[in-house]
C-alpha cells in the first residue's frame, strides 16, 4: 500500500497521466496545428488543466519540430521568460503555453494580445474559471480567442477509469480489483469529480489502510476497500478529526 499511495501524490508526473480528456486533447492539438492565435482553457482549480497542458506540450515537442514551443507554468515566478517572449520576434511559429494565467496583470495580457496579433504566435492560456470570466472575456480580448475550452469535473465513470487505469498501468491490478462501484460513488460524492481532491483522498485512504494493515490486520479486508477508510480519509483531510 505504501507504493500504491505514491501514485496519488499531488505532483505532476507525466508517467502517471491517464487520458481522461481525449476529445479536448484532439481539439487543442488541431487548434495549434492550424496556428490559431489564442486558445483558452478554463475550469475549476484541480480539474486537470495543468496536467492536460503538460501532456499536449510533451506530444507537440515530439511531433512538431517546426514549432518553437514554450511552457510557462507560473508567469508570476517566471517573469523573465515571459519578457523574453516579447523580445523574440521572428517568422518561426511559436506556441506558448501559459499556466495559471490568472496571475498575469492587465498590461501583460494586453502585450500578449498584441504579440499574437502581429507575430506568428499561438498562445494557450490556462486559468481558473472565475478569473477567466473577469479578464479574458473582455470585449477586445474575447473577440480574439479562437478556442475556449471548459474543463469539466470528472463524472462517476471517469473517476472509475482514472483510479483503475492508474493502478493497472502501474501493476497494481490486485488493488484495482478491490474497488467496487460503491467506493466510486462515495469518492464522487466527497470530491465532486475534482481530480486534485480525488488524488488527495486516495493518497490519504491508502495511508490509513496501510496503517491499519500494519497494526490491526484483522480489520482490513483483502478483497475490497471498505468505505469506512475513504470516509475517515475525508474526515482527516477536512479537519473533522480536530
Amino acid at each position, binding site marked *: 500500500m505504501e507504493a500504491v499511495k505514491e501514485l496519488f501524490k499531488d505532483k505532476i508526473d507525466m508517467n502517471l497521466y491517464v487520458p481522461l480528456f481525449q476529445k479536448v486533447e484532439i481539439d487543442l492539438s488541431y487548434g495549434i496545428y492550424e496556428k490559431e492565435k489564442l486558445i483558452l482553457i478554463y475550469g475549476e482549480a484541480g480539474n486537470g488543466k495543468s496536467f492536460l497542458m503538460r501532456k499536449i506540450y510533451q506530444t507537440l515537442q515530439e511531433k512538431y519540430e517546426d514549432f518553437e514551443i514554450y511552457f510557462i507554468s507560473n508567469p508570476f515566478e517566471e517573469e523573465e521568460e515571459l519578457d523574453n517572449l516579447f523580445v523574440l520576434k521572428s517568422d518561426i511559429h511559436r506556441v506558448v503555453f501559459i499556466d495559471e494565467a490568472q496571475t498575469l496583470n492587465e498590461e501583460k495580457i494586453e502585450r500578449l494580445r498584441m504579440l499574437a496579433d502581429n507575430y506568428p504566435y499561438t498562445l494557450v492560456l490556462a486559468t481558473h474559471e472565475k478569473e477567466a470570466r473577469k479578464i479574458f472575456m473582455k470585449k477586445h480580448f474575447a473577440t480574439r480567442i479562437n478556442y475556449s475550452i471548459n474543463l469539466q469535473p470528472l463524472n462517476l465513470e471517469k473517476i472509475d477509469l482514472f483510479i483503475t487505469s492508474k493502478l493497472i498501468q502501474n501493476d497494481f491490478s490486485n488493488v484495482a480489483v478491490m474497488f467496487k462501484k460503491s467506493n466510486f460513488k462515495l469518492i464522487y460524492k466527497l470530491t465532486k469529480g475534482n481530480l486534485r481532491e480525488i488524488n488527495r483522498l486516495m493518497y490519504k485512504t491508502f495511508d490509513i489502510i496501510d496503517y491499519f494493515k500494519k497494526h490491526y490486520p484483522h480489520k482490513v479486508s483483502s478483497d475490497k476497500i471498505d468505505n469506512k477508510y475513504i470516509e475517515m480519509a475525508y474526515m*482527516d483531510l477536512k479537519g473533522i*478529526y480536530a
Partner: protein
Amino acid sequence: MHRYEELEKLYYKKKYIKYGTIGSLIFIILIVSYYFFNRDIENKKVVKIKQTENNYTKKVEKKKIIKKVTKKDFEKVKVDKESNLKKEEIKEVAVIQKLVLYPIFPDINELLAKEKAKKEGADKKVVEKENKIKKEQIKEKTLNNNETIKITDNTNKDKKESKKIEIVVKEKKDSLNNLIHFYNITPDYETAIKISKIYLKENNYKEAIEWLKKANKLIPENYESWYLFAKSLVKLGKTKEAKRVLVAYLNNYGANPKIEQLLRSLK
C-alpha cells in the same frame, strides 16, 4: 493513541449519531402521524355522535310538536261528532282498519303453545323463527294492499295536503271519530293509546283491545299497550290470559315495575 485510531473512533461515533438521529426522527414521525391519524378518527366519531344526537333531537322535537298540536287543539276545540267528516274519508278509514292494522300481540293460544314448547324443552330459536316468519307475513300483507300504499304515499308526498289536514284537525272537535280520522292519516302510538283509553272508559274492551294492538304494532316495546291490554283482558274475565301477556312482556323486554305490580295483583 495514533491519530488514525482516534479518527476511527470518531468515525464510529459520528455513524452512531447519524443513525441515532435518523432512527429518532423516524420514531417521532411515526408517533406524530399515529397521533394525527387517531385524532381524525376521534373527530369523525364525535361528528357522527353529534349528527345522531341532532337527528334524535329533531325527531323528538317533531314528536313534541305533533303532541302539542293534538293535545292542545283537542282540549281547546269542541267538535261535533258527525259534522266535518266526509263520506270518502270514512271509507278510507274503514279500508285502513281492515287492511293496514294487524295485531301483533301474541294470541293467547300462541302463548299457550309457546309455554308448552318451553316445557317440552324446545329451543328458543324455533320460537324466534316463527316470530320472524309471522312478521314477514304481516309485511307481505301490508305491501299487497295497494290502496293503503296509495293512501300513505299521498300523505308522504303531498306536504301541502298534510298541512291542510293539520289545520282541519285543529278546527275539529275532540271526538273519538276525529281521533280515529287523525290516526288513519298519521298512524301514531299516542293517538292509538288515547283511543283505546276512550274505549276503556266506555267499557268497550274489545274495541280497546283492537286499538291497543295497533299501538303495540307501532311501538311494541312500550309497556303501556301491554299493560292496558292485560287490564282489558282482566275486565273481560280472562285473568289467566292477562297473566300470560304480562309474563310474555317481562320475558321479551325485561323488568317493568308497573307490569310487575299488575302481575302481582293478579296472583
